[in-house]
Every structure is written in structure tokens, then in C-alpha cells.
């Protein structure tokens, strides 16, 4: 339908709209008008994505704004966004004609997902595909291939290059799959084509890190204009993404690899000295002139960009002590040696970058300035030495990133050296962790650079925490409630098993056989009563592993299998993906299935269990972080000092948002229905319960608190019986100003 919001014509590809979607558009439009950032929380199951897309594309049609950069957490979310966009685009075309509605929208991903080269795309990992591509497309390889036809190049890339500026994507909506198909059809490389087309596109959909992680953003998102509208969807975890983006860890394997890399580099330097000494001299001269990076680097020569934020990159001459290639290698060797020595410790050490730098300077005479140039100097060297197998050099890359980061930032970081994992003290696995503590660092340039940044998710409660964590001032921040035509959500808090003994995953209780059995009985009762799909979330992998083994020995698992097939998330993504696919098929064919998954795991982050794929979610325990972790401790301390956020508050906030995120996966539209069981006695406490998002709390009636297994089974049966009744949307149809019909479910009506 087509309607007006404060004078803006909005094209919405469905015949009806929920009132909260309308409200959401209204607020979003005001934020865009004000050219400011906004923070919007809208419950899952209300069609957030299509609302966003619909308003922003309509806004783009009416106003001269830049492109829409839509950031998703995962590739499969990206595919979904693009598919919704296709529907929207088809609708716009119908309404205003093909010419007027012309847009170019594309998804961007890594080479691994876009490559169509028959050999390279078959490579196993992301790094090997990247390296394989570089081997065929690096400028010096192609140069050599001109003279020597035996040197292999990539036909797709060559064809694309030959076309030059004429290689363009016609308007339309392109998913990764369609990009690949288009590439195959034309014989062009889809990856480089997509990267090139970003500057012409109206809508770009890609992963968070292409915007947040300087290593990737430095290559992909450098040339975006200020007027862009940036959207972070499902942004409840955005602080963690920011922190990850600026963190480096160095383990024994890294150092060993780095040493190997340095030896290899020395060999190549020696070889060059004897054959092509001129090349090294040229590089030296360039560095003297202060050009660490050549500005006109050919497209394919880019690898990973500088790990520090664009504003902090020094634009001056590389210091003299690392200009010569052999000096730089010696410099890095000293650094690696020093870190090796630090890793030998038996106790946990924690210090700030400043003290680390001091001792580094004292013991190996490495100064901060030289460290800052570590990354730039390395890339320059690798390029000079014409090294293409980048996947081999990741170790030294990590060491250099570490050096550049500690050379650049003195605040908001901590260096933590742990000799072993607390949970497995017998296995020595020393790690030096440079941990970013301040989530606002990575996102700061995004807020500064772009006119409007929209942060949205189903669970952003408490709303006021995010502006503090990310230190920005939203012009609008608002949480929307969900209007429902029937009570299609049924959250329950289960505190006891059938034998009235309390259940919890509290550390002292979790391995108690009574608790394990009660949890098992709960699942058993539920799989017998609930049709189709059931999803269980556990607090951690190790806990899930333990409890599955116990259930297997107790025979509970076998009994569960009498009712439904069982699928489990494992650490292997391929296996998990196949398990999920099979899970869906089992639900489709009516056999029914149970999926065991982990809160904070990959599945909890981005897989929907809507409709019959998830009629019930059981959240076993509260997914607290491992509170003894040194990194977490350091972060909590930093939060307390800088933002005055209490440790306990943050931990509970973090755990409850994860739990809410897990259970929120069951509902995706209002016609859908699902139950949620929070199985832990601690959820019954007010401080935990009150942190759940509003749309869960409103449905959490007093009768659904403090339940035992049999009581919850009774409620579940009642609920399912009620939901099985035929469902009619009770709605009001009112005429809007533009004469079109506008649909509103019962509840709040939009004002005109």
C-alpha cells in the first residue's frame, strides 16, 4: 500500500501495516529529517526489516540523501534483507513505474562467498581463497603474465579489468547468488565488480565488520559519502562486535608462525638483494618520502587495511630505524622474542599499554613511534617482495597489528597474559591478549562520518545503556510495544522440577544429578506435548556437552527420541548448518524435532525458529558470562570507572539480553505463536525478570511465575489448545488522508 507520513509518500509492499510499524516509520523519518542518529527498539515479530527498508527507500526517492548502508550480523540475514528488498522493489515498480523506481541494491561478502573461479572457489577456508585470488590477480603476477603465458591468471578478473569503467551492474537487486550468476554469465569477477559497484549503488547490504572493523572497512568502505544512512540491524550485540574488532590475541602458535614468516622474509630479502636490489632501494626511497602506502595501489593488491581507526593513522615518514628491510625484520624479531618471553609466565599478568610499552622500550629498545608504523611497514615490505600467499603470513600480520594498536592507543585497552584457561588449568595454553575495553572506540568514526546512523533491534533494553556504552547522542531513542490480536506469546518461568526441587545452572547446582534429571524430564514432558519444533538453549558448550552425555546415560535422550528427532549445534559450523537444515526438514515433514543450541552461539545469534520451526523454546539457565575471565574483569572495571556502570548490573543486563535474544527467535509475525520457558529459579527474582524486554514482561502473567514442570506442562497444553483455534484478524479499516485504506489492528490507532 501507499500512504503518507508527514508529507512523505511511503511505499509498503503489503496490504496491511501494524500500528507499531507505522510509529516506527514516523520516528525514523523524524530522525532522518533531523540528520541525526537514532536508537529504536521494536519487538521481534513485527517486521522491522521491511519497515526500515520501506521508509528509507521511500525517503531516498523523495529526498536527495546518500545511499543506504544496511549492516547485518550474518550472511543469511543479508540474504533475507535482500529478498525483502526485492519484494519492495517490485511493489515500487508497480506503483511508480520502472524508470522512477530504478535502484541498484547489492550484497557484499568475502571472496570465499563470491568467487567463481573454478579452482580458487573450491579452496577450503576463507584465507586460502583470499590468497588463491591474490596469487592470480596481484599486479606483479599479471605483469609477469604478459610476457610469460605460462603464468596463470584469473580469466574472470582479466575480463573485468579489460572492460574497465564499462563493467557495470544493471539496476536491480542482487543477492550473493545472483552476483555470482551475473559474473558467470558475463565472465566477470563478481567480487571486484561488487566492490566497484558500491559507489553507484543505492543500497548496500553487508556485514557489520565492513563498517566497524578498520582492517576491512579501510578497504571496502573508504569512499562512502557523508550523506549515507547507516543501519545496524539486530544491534543488541554491537558493543561486543566493536570490542572484537580492535582486539588481538597472540598465542604460542602465533609466535612460532611469526618466526617462520620472518625467516622466510629474510630469505626473500636475500634473494632480492642478489637479483633485484633496485627494488628494495626504491622502497626505501618511498619510505623516506613518507609514503608508507602508495596511493594508487591496484585494486587487487589490497589485502587487509590498517587495524587502527582511520583518524589515528599517522601520515608521516616511516621512522628511520625500520626503513631498511633487514632492519625491520630484526625489529620484528626482537618484538616476537620479547612477547615469547612474556608468555613464559606462570601467573596471570594484567597491565595497561603504557607500562607494556615502557618495559618493551627498556628491554628491547623498541619505541612507540616505530611500533605505530609496524603494520604499514609490513604491508609495504610484503608488496615489495611480491609475496602472494598471504594466508601463510597471517601470524606476522597479527603481531604487527598488535604493535600498531599498542603504539597508537594508550587508553581503553588492556594487555592480559594468561598462562592457561582457568577452566582447564592442566593444559598450558598461554595467551597474550590485547583487549579493547571501550566499545565506543570502534564505532566513533562511524558516528562522526555519517549523517544518520540507525541502531535497532528487538532487544535493546535498557535503552539508556547503549548511548553510554557507545558514547553517542541519539536524536531519537524509543522503544515500541507490540500490539497483538491474541496472546500468541506464552513466556513461563520454571523454578522447580516435578519433585519440587529447585532447578538452576548456578555453578554449585549445575552438575547435581537431580537438577540434570529434572531438566531432562522437563524436555521429555514437553516434546510429548508440543507439536513440531522445540528449541533448547544451554548456557555454554561445555555445559551442553555435559548434560547431553548425562541424559544419554540416564536414558532420557533415548526417550526424547521416541517423540522427536534430535539435532545439536556443534563447534563445527558445517555440521551445525546441515543439522539446522535437517531440523527444518524434520519439522516440515511433520516428524518434529528438537534442536539443542547454545546461548551466545552462532545459532542463537541469527537463526529464526519461527512458525512450526519453533513452538517452544526452553532456556536452560541464565547465560552469564564466565565471570572469572580476566578479560571480562578488566572490561567491567573499565566500565565502572568510565561510565559508572555497576558490575552486577552489566553482567545481568548482558545475560538477560542473551536469554531474551534466544527466546525471541520463535516469533516472527503476529499470526505466529510460541512458548518460552525460562528454566532457572533465578529468573523468578525481580532484578532478573525486570531486565527482560517489555514485550516479554507484558505477557508474563503472575500465574506463569514460579512454576514446576507439571504446572508448566498444564499451561502449555492450555495454550496450544487455545492457539489451535482458527484465528481471525480483528481489525479496523480506516481511510487515510490519501484515500487509500489503512489497516490497524486493535489497540492504538495512528493519528493523522
Amino acid at each position, binding site marked *: 500500500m501507499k500512504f503518507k507520513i508527514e508529507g512523505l509518500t511511503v511505499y509498503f509492499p503489503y496490504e496491511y501495516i501494524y500500528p507499531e510499524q507505522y510509529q516506527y516509520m514516523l520516528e525514523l523519518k523524524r530522525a532522518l529529517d533531523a540528520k541525526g542518529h537514532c536508537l529504536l527498539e521494536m519487538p521481534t515479530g513485527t517486521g522491522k526489516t521491511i519497515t526500515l527498508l520501506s521508509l528509507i527507500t521511500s525517503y531516498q526517492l523523495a529526498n536527495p540523501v546518500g545511499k543506504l548502508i544496511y549492516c547485518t550480523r550474518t550472511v543469511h540475514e543479508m540474504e533475507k534483507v535482500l529478498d525483502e528488498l526485492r519484494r519492495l522493489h517490485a511493489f515500487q515498480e508497480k506503483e511508480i513505474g520502472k524508470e522512477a523506481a530504478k535502484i541498484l541494491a547489492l550484497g557484499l561478502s568475502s571472496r570465499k*562467498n563470491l568467487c567463481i573461479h573454478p579452482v580458487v572457489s573450491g579452496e577450503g577456508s576463507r584465507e586460502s581463497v583470499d590468497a588463491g585470488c591474490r596469487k592470480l590477480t596481484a599486479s606483479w603476477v599479471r605483469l609477469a603474465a604478459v610476457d610469460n603465458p605460462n603464468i596463470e591468471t584469473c580469466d574472470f578478473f582479466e575480463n573485468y579489468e579489460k572492460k574497465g569503467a564499462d563493467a557495470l551492474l544493471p539496476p536491480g537487486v542482487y543477492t550473493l547468488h545472483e552476483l555470482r550468476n551475473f559474473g558467470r554469465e558475463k565472465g566477470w569477477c563478481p567480487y571486484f565488480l561488487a566492490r566497484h559497484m558500491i559507489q553507484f549503488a543505492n543500497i548496500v547490504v553487508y556485514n557489520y565488520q565492513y563498517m566497524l572493523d578498520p582492517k576491512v572497512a579501510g578497504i571496502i568502505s573508504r569512499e562512502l559519502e557523508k550523506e549515507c544512512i547507516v543501519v545496524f540491524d539486530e544491534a543488541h550485540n554491537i558493543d561486543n562486535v566493536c570490542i572484537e574488532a580492535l582486539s588481538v*590475541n597472540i598465542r604460542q602458535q602465533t609466535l612460532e608462525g611469526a618466526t617462520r614468516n620472518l625467516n622466510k622474509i629474510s630469505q626473500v630479502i636475500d634473494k632480492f638483494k642478489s637479483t633485484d636490489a633496485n627494488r628494495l632501494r626504491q622502497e626505501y626511497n618511498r619510505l623516506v618520502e613518507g609514503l608508507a602506502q602508495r596511493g594508487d595501489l591496484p585494486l587487487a593488491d589490497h589485502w587487509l587495511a590498517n587495524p587502527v581507526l582511520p583518524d589515528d593513522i599517522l601520515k608521516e615518514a616511516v621512522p628511520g630505524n625500520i626503513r631498511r628491510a633487514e632492519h625491520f625484520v630484526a625489529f620484528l624479531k626482537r618484538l616476537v622474542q620479547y612477547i615469547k618471553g612474556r608468555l613464559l609466565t606462570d601467573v596471570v599478568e594484567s597491565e595497561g599499554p603504557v607500562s607494556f610499552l615502557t618495559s618493551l622500550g627498556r628491554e628491547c629498545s623498541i619505541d612507540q613511534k616505530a611500533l605505530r608504523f609496524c603494520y604499514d611497514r609490513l604491508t609495504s615490505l610484503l608488496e615489495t617482495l611480491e609475496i602472494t600467499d598471504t594466508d601463510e603470513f597471517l601470524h606476522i600480520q597479527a603481531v604487527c597489528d598488535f604493535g600498531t594498536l599498542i603504539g597508537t592507543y594508550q587508553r581503553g585497552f588492556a594487555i592480559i597474559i594468561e598462562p592457561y584457561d582457568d577452566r582447564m588449568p592442566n593444559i598450558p595454553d598461554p595467551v597474550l591478549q590485547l583487549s579493547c575495553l571501550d566499545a565506543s572506540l570502534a564505532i566513533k568514526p562511524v558516528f562522526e562520518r555519517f549523517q544518520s546512523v540507525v541502531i535497532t533491534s528487538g532487544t535493546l533494553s535498557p535503552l539508556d545503556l547503549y548511548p553510554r556504552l557507545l558514547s553517542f547522542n541519539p536524536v531519537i531513542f524509543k522503544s515500541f510495544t507490540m500490539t497483538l490480536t491474541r496472546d500468541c506469546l506464552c513466556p513461563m518461568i520454571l523454578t522447580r522440577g516435578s519433585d519440587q526441587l529447585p532447578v538452576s545452572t548456578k555453578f554449585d547446582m549445575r552438575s547435581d544429578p537431580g537438577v540434570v534429571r529434572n531438566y531432562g524430564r522437563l524436555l521429555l514432558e514437553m516434546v510429548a506435548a508440543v507439536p513440531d519444533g522445540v528449541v533448547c538453549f544451554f548456557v555454554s558448550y561445555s555445559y551442553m556437552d555435559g548434560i547431553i552425555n548425562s541424559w544419554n546415560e540416564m536414558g532420557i535422550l533415548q526417550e526424547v527420541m521416541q517423540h522427536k528427532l*534430535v539435532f545439536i549445534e556443534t563447534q*563445527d559450523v558445517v555440521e551445525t*548448518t546441515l543439522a539446522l537444515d535437517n531440523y527444518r526438514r524434520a519439522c516440515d515433514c511433520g*516428524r518434529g524435532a528438537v534442536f539443542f543450541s547454545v546461548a551466545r552461539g552462532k545459532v542463537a545469534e541469527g537463526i529464526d525458529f519461527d512458525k512450526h520451526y519453533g513452538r517452544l523454546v526452553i532456556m536452560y539457565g541464565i547465560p552469564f558470562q564466565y565471570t572469572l575471565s580476566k578479560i571480562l574483569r578488566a572490561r567491567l572495571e573499565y566500565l565502572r570507572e568510565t561510565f559508572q556502570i555497576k558490575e552486577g548490573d552489566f553482567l545481568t543486563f548482558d545475560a538477560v539480553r542473551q536469554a531474551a535474544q534466544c527466546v525471541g527467535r520463535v516469533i516472527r509475525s503476529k499470526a505466529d505463536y510460541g512458548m518460552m520457558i525460562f528454566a532457572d529459579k533465578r529468573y523468578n527474582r525481580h532484578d532478573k525478570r525486570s531486565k527482560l524486554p517489555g514485550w516479554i514482561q507484558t505477557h508474563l502473567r503472575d500465574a506463569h511465575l514460579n512454576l514446576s514442570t507439571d504446572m508448566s506442562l498444564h499451561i502449555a497444553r492450555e495454550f496450544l489448545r487455545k492457539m489451535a483455534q482458527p484465528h481471525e484478524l480483528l481489525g479496523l479499516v480506516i481511510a487515510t488522508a490519501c484515500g487509500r485504506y489503512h489497516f490497524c489492528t486493535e489497540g492504538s490507532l495512528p493519528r493523522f
Partner: protein
Amino acid sequence: MDVPVLKVNAKYMGPSKKGPAMAGVLTMSDTRFKWTPNYASGSAPLNIEFSVIKAHFFSKGKKALLNLSKGSDAKAEGYVFEYDDVRDRDMCRDHVAKILGKQSNGGAPAAPAMKPLIAPVAGSQSDQFDRAEMERRLKLLQTDSELQKLHSELVIGGVLSETEFWAARKHMLEEDVTRGPKQRTGLKTAMLADVRPLTDGRTNKVTFNLTPEIIHQIFTEKPAVHRAFLQNVPTKMSEVEFWTKYCRAEYLYRTKNQAAAAAEAADDEDLAVFTREDDIIQNEARKKIKRVDPTLDMAADMADDYTHLPGHGTYRDGSKEETEYNGVKLRSIMNDINRHAAVVLEGRPLDGLPVAGADTATVAQALAIAQQAQADSENIDELEQKRLERLRDMTLNDDLQGPQEAPHVPLTIQDPRKYFDSQAAPAGESGPAAPTSMDPGEALDSFHEQLVSWKRNGLQNCLLVSPSLALKIMTDLTREVAASKFTLGRTAEKNVLDSLPKAIKDELSQQSAAVHELLRHFWACYPLTSKFLLEKATRLKQAMSKIYTHLGKMKESASGDLRHQISQLVQPIFHALDAAITHFEEDEKRRASKSAQKQAPGQQNGSYGAKLVAA
């Protein structure tokens, strides 16, 4: 006279029912069965009437036994036969069941005119005694009791021939053939391959029990074991040795003795197969990952993640954990469960193969062939299409979409004018001018006229009913209207038929089925071009008249309330029958006059059937 219907080899177990079994030939007709021993010395031949048999029993096990008992339980005196083939037994069993069923239904077993169940009609080529066809018909009759009743009434009653009866039901027979088993049976969800060792409690010995079914599941779930079996058995080791090794590996794994398992594997390369990570599964996974639903492809996601390049991101921050022990991936129960569920979902690749009873070698071979065939038949384009469709499904929000029109089959009328004319004609004939066609004003005028005439003339010349009768009628009508208003809609599922007593209901439905069948055949006879058809039509007409009178009687004999309802129900039947009989008689007359014209008059046949008046 007895026509032998069945003749099979069967062993008679002797009067004690326990054996010794004596080989011989068993012949069954509709009234009796005979058994003749192959060797005269064995036992006296049997010749028994079915009327003495009260019940029959058969074995479910491997031995194909049939027990024809004189008493009502299996232990009573009787005759036990053992068959070489289960199918022979089943055929006999079905035959006996039919006859016994008839005995118990109809009291006296066989009227003299009773024909064999499936009567071969001589002379017609297509009616060759086809055993397979007969079996199919028999089976269909057994599964459908309605059809059986109809069959017994019409065919065995001699109205229709066997072929005529089945000619109209070819599709039922064909369906039965093509359908095969009604539903494909899937695999059980239980994890059979997860064999648990049994201990006897006294010694250290543990026992594993493997059945062919379990072995089949092991093969499908662990392709490496399957491959090893095909390679090594029986060339390198015997089957027992193979499974001993397998169980040993399983036992070590089960007792969590990973180190011991690894040590054993290092010693014995055959054993290593069972402990190592399965490379076939890995390859399969790589293939399958390409066609999963893009909305849950987490592998693609992983490939897009540059934050977690080795050495980047946080390694040990308390929310993540690594269970990789020094890069060695351990086999865990989780992998087994996932694999099991995947296999179960894929279904039974050995459809139609007798898994039970076959030896493991054949199972292994058959499985290999089935898997190969499956791999060959995959179509990339189709999969791609499905993938996209699923993606659409996942993102569409049907809640916000407008009401979809319910799918319907468009009505196709070849000749609309003819259709509507035929609809309109009876209405025009039956009543006076349709009130709808009258102008409202006109109607009012005519009513007014009538009113005026009444006023003027009074009601003297009208036929008056007695007030008491009028009142009674009015009360009845009012009550009926009120009742129907009350019950309408609420008791939608209630049928008039349901209010009748069961016996009458059954009788009615059976009669109506019979009438339909007869009518179908009757009308199919026209035009009566041959003598055969004429005879058939006459025969059918007679049968119809019989039913007509029967129904009439039934109606008459029914009491008060029921009578009305029954007459309502049989009304359409009567109409149809009337039409048929009238047509027949008219045709008869025409033919008679025609023949009278040709020949001398007075040679007419006697008129058929008394004129029956509809009540």
C-alpha cells in the same frame, strides 16, 4: 456341484495338529475342501464341508500354517495345514475367511444356485481365468465391505456377471496395483546403531547383540564401516571377526577409554577405521552444504568473518570456549546424534528390500547400489529452485498480506445453453408460473382481486377443513419450523440418516448402492442393439422391480416418524427407478409394435413387471 477354486500344495499336520507333516494337495471349493496325500501310505484323504468349520487361524511366524478349527478357539479339534509358500497360505486363508464370513452372515451356507466366488464366464476372451486379476479383486473385496455386499448381492445373486461388475471398477483395481503399500515406512527414530553392551554380571565378558536391522543402520550411519565391510569381508576376514573388531572399538569408545582406543587403532589398521573421523561423511557434508537454505547457511557466514582471523579478536573472554584439544577433533555423542537424525530423515534407501531375514552381505551390497543411484539422480537446477522458494517463504509476512482467495476449481460447462436449459426445464414444468417472474405490482393486484372476491362472496364456496384438523396442521408446521430454526446450523453435521436405526440405515444405503449399480448397467445397455443386451436389460429390470417392491415394503412396514423420513429418502430412488422402468416399457412397446408390423400381431411377449405405483 463343486467347482474347485484353489489348488495348492500343502502338508497336513495330522489329527494331533502337531505333525508329522504329510505332503499333499489341498483343493478348495466354495462348499468344501479336499486334501489328497501325495503318498498313499501317509494318511487318509480328507474331504470336509466348510459348514463344520467354525473358525480359522494362521501363523505369523516363519512357518506358513493354516488352522481350520471346528471349535471357536485354535486349540479345538480341526485341521492344520502347512504351506511351502506364505502366499499360497494367504490365498487359502482369504478364501476360507470369505466362506466363513458368508456362513456367519447368511446363516445357511450355500444356496444351490450359489456360484463360485469369482465366476469364470466362458466364451469371452478377456475373461480368461487370470489368477493375479482374481487375487486383486479378492483383495479389494476384502478391504471394502460395502463393495463386498454389493458384489454378493448382484453378482452372486446372478443379476450381473463378474466381468460386468468389474468393468466399471477397473480404476479401483488399477489404483490398487499402482499404489503398492499405502505409505512408505520411514526409519525409526530410535538409535539402533548405538548398541549397548550387555554384561552377565559374573564374568568380565560383555556381549553385543547385532541384528540385520541394526547392521543396516550402522552401515547407513557410518559409511566408513560400510566401506570397510565391503572391502574386507569375506576376502580378508570373516564376518564374525569384522563385527568383533567393530564391537571392540565401540566398547573402548563407550568406556571413555580414548587413549586405549587410539593405541589399539595404532596397532591395527583395520580397527583404525572405526575410531577415525569419517572422511566419507565429511565429503558428503561438503557437497550438501552447497544446497542448504541460504537463510541458515552459517558456513557462508564464517567465510565473511574477518574480525576473527587467527590472532584477532578476543580469544578467551569468558563467553566463548574452545573444546579443541591440540587440534584433534574428538568424536562425540553429538556427532553421532546429528548423523543419526540426518540418516533417519533421508529415509530408507532400501525401499522394498527385505531387510529382515537377508544376510548382511546382501544388505551391504544393496545399500551401496541404492546410494549410488541416489547420488546419480540429483538435479542441480531443481535444488536451486527449491532453495529460492524456501528463501521466499522465510521472508514473506503473510500476516500483513491481503486475504488470499481460496483455491478453487473453475467450473467448465461445455455447452452453457444446454446446461441451463436443462436446469430450468423441470422447474417450468413442475410448478405454476414461477413467482419470481411476476412483477411485484402484478402479484399485489392479483392478491387484491382475490381478497375482494372473498370479501364479496364470503368463504362459502371454498372447501373448508375442520378447525381441529387445521389447528393440528398449523401446530405441527409451526413446531417444525421452530425446531428447524433452532437446530439449523447447530447440528450441521447431523444427517437424516443418522436418526434412523442402524439396521434400516444399512439396509437403505446398501439398497441404494445396488440401485445405482443396476441403473448404471441398465442405461449402459441402451440402445438395445443385440439380443444379449436385451436379455441383460430384462434381467436388470426384473432385479430393479424386486428392489422397488422391497423398498416399498420397507417403507410400509416402518413405523410413524420413520416412515416419513424413509419415504423422503427413497423418493429419489423411486424416481430413478420409475424413469428406468417406464423407459424400458416404452421401448418394449415400440419394439413390440415394430415386430408386430413385421410379423403377424399377437406374438408379443407377456408384459414385463406389473405397473408399480409410487406411494
